[in-house]
């Protein structure tokens, strides 16, 4: 597959971004440095090019019924202009993708999905369309997206619009508002654990917004931030990344996402039966958080041991820029998953001691 450029590619080059191939897209892993960008988002604000994300429209009379069947969360609980996190599962409970549902109206929804999964998701949605009276459209190429994240996000963005941004509540959206003179959709959402917005506009317009934001945000400490900081930020905030905390093999319950799996909703969704059975009988493994007790940084894929027996593996691990501690997530046997339990992380063939703690690392501190 040919690696694609987002509408903001030239801007990343101008800003000195270090470009990598991520999920089939050329994107900056960092500009001036991961740690500085991470700190900017926690203290002031940072902006990310997330134009690689997939956007799939579902429209039609049966749109709600279809999404209730396709997705694990309860889409019927949503009002207009609301956003909801959900999973899309296979019949065995494994995860096709995790995504955000944007409700424009009872018969019109936008699904924002992971870049690497967009084609797979679209095909899955078509394959499961059945007799539902709907139209499914992959509009990813028509949409550019910026995530503006951090405590000063509202203050900065408000300078570029007359619309009262404080009226957009957490996990709500507003369509057709003008930011620096161009029409876009804004939602109060993000992937960092901070307040912030995601801005959707046409590929041409997103460039205008990007540059205006950079200019006007400077005095408030706004920095462009890369994929590196995006991952450390979401990890600290206990947010999952597809392919790590959840995947085709790791189901949402194991990944700690029971809150987005609604067994009680009236419709039988794809994957419900095996997931419900597992939940009732008890999980065999789950994703836990841990903190290193000895020197060493845990990394994805490192094996986890207890008393010489392998009990799982690390799904994400970092020297946390915010907490300055070596912490990680690991998928391990349920018998060893108790808080406070001491485990060994194999770092370069040596067992290094760690302790299980809550995955909500920011709240722990």
């Amino acid at each position, binding site marked *: 597959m040919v690696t694609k450029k987002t509408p903001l590619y030239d801007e990343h080059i101008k800003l000195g971004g*270090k470009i990598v191939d991520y999920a089939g897209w050329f994107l900056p*892993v*960092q500009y001036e*440095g*991961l*740690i500085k960008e*991470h700190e900017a988002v926690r203290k002031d604000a940072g902006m990310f090019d997330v134009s690689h994300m997939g956007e799939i429209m579902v429209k039609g009379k049966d749109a709600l019924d279809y999404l209730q069947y396709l997705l694990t969360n309860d889409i019927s609980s949503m009002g207009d202009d609301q956003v909801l996190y959900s999973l899309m599962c296979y019949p065995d409970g494994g995860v096709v993708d995790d995504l955000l549902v944007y409700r424009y109206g009872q018969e019109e929804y936008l699904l924002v999905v992971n870049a690497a999964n967009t084609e797979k998701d679209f095909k899955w949605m078509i394959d499961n369309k059945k007799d539902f009276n709907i139209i499914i459209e992959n509009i990813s190429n028509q949409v550019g997206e910026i995530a503006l994240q951090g405590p000063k996000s509202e203050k900065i963005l408000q300078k570029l619009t007359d619309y009262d941004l404080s009226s957009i509540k957490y996990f709500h959206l507003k369509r057709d508002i003008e930011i620096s003179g161009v029409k876009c959709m804004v939602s109060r959402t993000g992937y960092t654990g901070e307040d912030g917005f995601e801005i959707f506009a046409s590929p041409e317009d997103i460039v205008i917004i990007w540059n205006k934001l950079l200019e006007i945000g400077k005095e408030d400490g706004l920095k462009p931030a890369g994929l*590196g900081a995006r991952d*450390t930020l979401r990890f600290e905030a206990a947010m999952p990344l597809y392919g790590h905390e959840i995947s085709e093999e790791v189901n949402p319950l194991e990944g700690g996402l029971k809150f987005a799996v609604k067994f009680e909703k009236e419709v039988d969704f794809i994957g419900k039966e095996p997931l419900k059975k597992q939940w009732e009988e008890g999980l065999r493994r789950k994703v836990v958080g841990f903190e290193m007790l000895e020197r*060493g*940084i845990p*990394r994805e894929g490192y094996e986890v041991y207890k008393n010489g027996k392998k009990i799982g593996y690390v799904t994400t691990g*970092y*020297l946390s*820029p915010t907490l300055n501690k070596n912490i990680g997530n690991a998928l391990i046997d349920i018998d060893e998953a108790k808080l406070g339990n001491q485990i060994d992380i194999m770092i*370069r063939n040596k067992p290094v001691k760690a302790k299980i703690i809550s995955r909500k690392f920011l709240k722990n501190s």
Partner: protein
Amino acid sequence: MKVLKDLYYTKDHEWLKVEGNEGYIGLTDFAQDSLGDIVYVELPNVDDEFEKEEAFSAVESVKAASDVYMPVSGRILEVNEALLDEPALLNEDPYKNWIVKIELADLSQLDELMSSEEYEKYLEEEV
């Protein structure tokens, strides 16, 4: 990228400075720049012996861990313990801040390493 004269270089971006049958090993400017902010360094023990191309140390950025390999076979004489508390020294001056000092086991292995000119050319071709 800065490349210093009179050092030996490897394809994995280590440098080796030789003094008699002893030598200092570190990371090149290219290596530190590719890694980004270095936040952790793992050092071997004094007297540990390693073969050429064997991993003797690891350096880690926030993003990833990378092994550091022996340019030649040898025995560890000294480790730069300052790096344990201040890994970022490798970013600040990668040629001044060596990782280990070694005793070379076989001086003829130097012939297999790159000169500064060869390394510069290698960087141009690789990047």
